[in-house]
């Protein structure tokens, strides 16, 4: 019978063909049934949380030990492994990726030596044409490669355009070994080295930090509670406020662009603008849930309803960092800490 030890034996962590881990966020009632929809042969293992999915392209190890954030491990090439998962996640309203805030990549592991960092800012339809850095993509290769980006971030005109897209770092642990990890902001990992255990710990650390952000957003969700059949009740929760470091030139155009149903935001919306405030009735097409927003020139208010997924807010934060303001902050200090503080500080 197959066990987790077999998974460890199977995954090579080769520098030539690195092992990949894809993290999928799931809200499903029957996790096994959900997996069985995937093309290929789903094999149970001795571990009830662990499955092996064999497809024409290769095999995945699916670990559902974390009921909400499933891990798909494989040695397949990304070009072979990702399309099936992407179609599956994109076709269901109860699955999503992780959307890591920029700071989660900037400080991905305590004392990690970064070897390669990449930022990707594409202001496109949200940033005005006169902005000093409308688009900015930087890739640095070398030890502690992020230091130049720290310098750029310190320049006020450019700080909004620094947004981490991916990082590659070397991690060593006396008890486990050494791995070289590449991770992108949508929770896709590539790893080579000599310790699957260290890789799994690395993924756990990234996921747990992200999960905290998502759960804090959900704790803020607005919840109307009825007191009795005669009417009356109360409301708990509050909107989540994002503060921008750069100013929105035209709130109506900004809201229209944001809610154009296109990737990466995938928000549909109707906007009305009064006194330079855009009031938006939106739908998050990733999950099929309604969402309200107020947008002014310097801040945005997001109304997340009880029962909605905090991933919606995390995705919005991450995408706004890459499309409008990499230096944005959250007004709620707990959520701001979860999204922006370096690992190990207040997290």
């Amino acid at each position, binding site marked *: 019978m197959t066990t987790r030890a077999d998974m460890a034996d199977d995954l090579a962590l080769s520098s030539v063909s690195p092992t990949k881990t894809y993290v999928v966020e799931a809200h499903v009632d029957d996790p096994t049934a959900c997996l069985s929809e995937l093309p290929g042969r789903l094999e149970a293992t001795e571990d009830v949380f662990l499955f092996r999915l064999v497809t024409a392209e290769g095999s995945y190890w699916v670990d559902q030990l974390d009921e909400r954030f499933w891990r798909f491990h494989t040695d397949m090439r990304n070009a072979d492994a990702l399309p099936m998962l*992407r179609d599956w996640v994109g076709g269901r309203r109860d699955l999503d990726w992780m959307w890591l805030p920029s700071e989660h990549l900037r400080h991905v592991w305590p004392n990690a030596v970064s070897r390669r960092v990449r930022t990707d800012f*594409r202001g496109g339809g949200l940033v005005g044409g006169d902005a000093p850095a409308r688009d900015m993509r930087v890739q640095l290769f070398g030890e502690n490669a992020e230091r130049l980006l720290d310098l750029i971030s310190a320049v006020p005109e450019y700080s909004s355009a620094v947004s981490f897209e991916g990082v*590659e770092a070397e991690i060593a642990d006396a008890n486990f070994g050494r791995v070289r990890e590449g991770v992108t902001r949508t929770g896709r990992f590539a790893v080579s080295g000599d310790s699957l255990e260290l890789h799994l710990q690395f993924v756990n650390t990234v996921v747990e930090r992200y999960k905290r952000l998502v759960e804090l957003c959900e704790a803020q969700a607005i919840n109307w509670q009825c007191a009795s059949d005669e009417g009356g009740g109360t409301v708990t929760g509050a909107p989540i406020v994002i503060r921008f470091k750069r100013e929105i030139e035209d709130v109506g155009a900004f809201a229209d662009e944001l809610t*154009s149903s296109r990737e990466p935001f995938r928000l549909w919306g109707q906007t009305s603008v009064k006194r330079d405030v855009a009031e938006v009735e939106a739908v998050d097409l990733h999950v099929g849930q309604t969402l309200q927003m107020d947008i002014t020139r310097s801040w945005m208010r997001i109304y997340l309803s009880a029962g909605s997924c905090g991933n919606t807010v995390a995705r919005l934060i991450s995408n706004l960092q890459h499309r409008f303001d990499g230096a944005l902050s959250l007004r709620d200090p707990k959520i701001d800490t979860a999204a922006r503080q370096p690992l190990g500080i207040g997290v």
Partner: protein
Amino acid sequence: MEERLLPINTLLSLLLPNDVTPPALANGGFRLGGLEIPAAGAAGAVTIDCLLSHADTNHLVLVEAKSGPNIEEEQAVKYGQLHASAVVQSAYVTLSVRTPPTAETVYLCLGTHLERVGLGLANAGLGYPIMTVSESLVSLERASAASAGLRAVFADGPVSLLGPPARMILFDQDSDVEVIKPRVLAVLVAAMAQRLTQLTLVSLAERATPHFALYGRQAQQKIKSKVGHAARQIANEEPSSFHYLPTTGSREGLVKILRTPEDNAFQGRTQAYQAVGRATKPRKTRKTVEVVANQMDLLAELDTVDNASGDGATLDGGEGER
């Protein structure tokens, strides 16, 4: 936000932590005790629009939120006859200190309606404090009649608002159908995304009005009726997507969803969503620049499929109109 809902939304915003609006009432020790609370006193029953409670003193503030300038004298008198203990029981307020609860009534209105509301209360022989709201300030008038706890909130003068209040109450039973319509359309688009084939008017009203259950039966009926009007208008404007069936003697009214963009291939899905509600959604366009990445490392390996598919790798993903 409708101006008539500015007072109640501002009041609620003063209770919110970490919002743009300063949480003056929350900082003063007040918490939300309830909304639309039915309570009975010696003069009869009244529905309290908003109930504030002070955890340290067990003091209750019974707020009548006026969306207009007129007051109902009978209602105002009933407020004054409510006993704090009866309100505690009606609103299920949890008292955490062993102190008899106390209560005061406060009227809440737009600043422009202060004179009329004040006159109405005076005619009824009532000296309730009045909280007034404008776009930039919240003030307490007739402060000498207010409790010490409430006066303390305004001890430094009016509370300055740093932006519009949160839209906690999007609309109510007296709102125009045009105000409700965008919200109803959003609920229908969400249903499309979830591949639902129909929604009853009750379900539509509940989804469009998060606070629906707080209202009494009469108000719920009015909201349901207006949501139905909005749904019928939307179906008339988007006949290829929605079909409205009115309530009959034997069947609850419903909206059928005739097609969903989810049935389209990825490329066409975005355009199909963009088309929903287009009649009322003027768009602005901007020129954008497409950038192609070219990486040769671990991260590039992770990106190869994304860049080819346009999953967020290009400005518009190579789809949709601009």
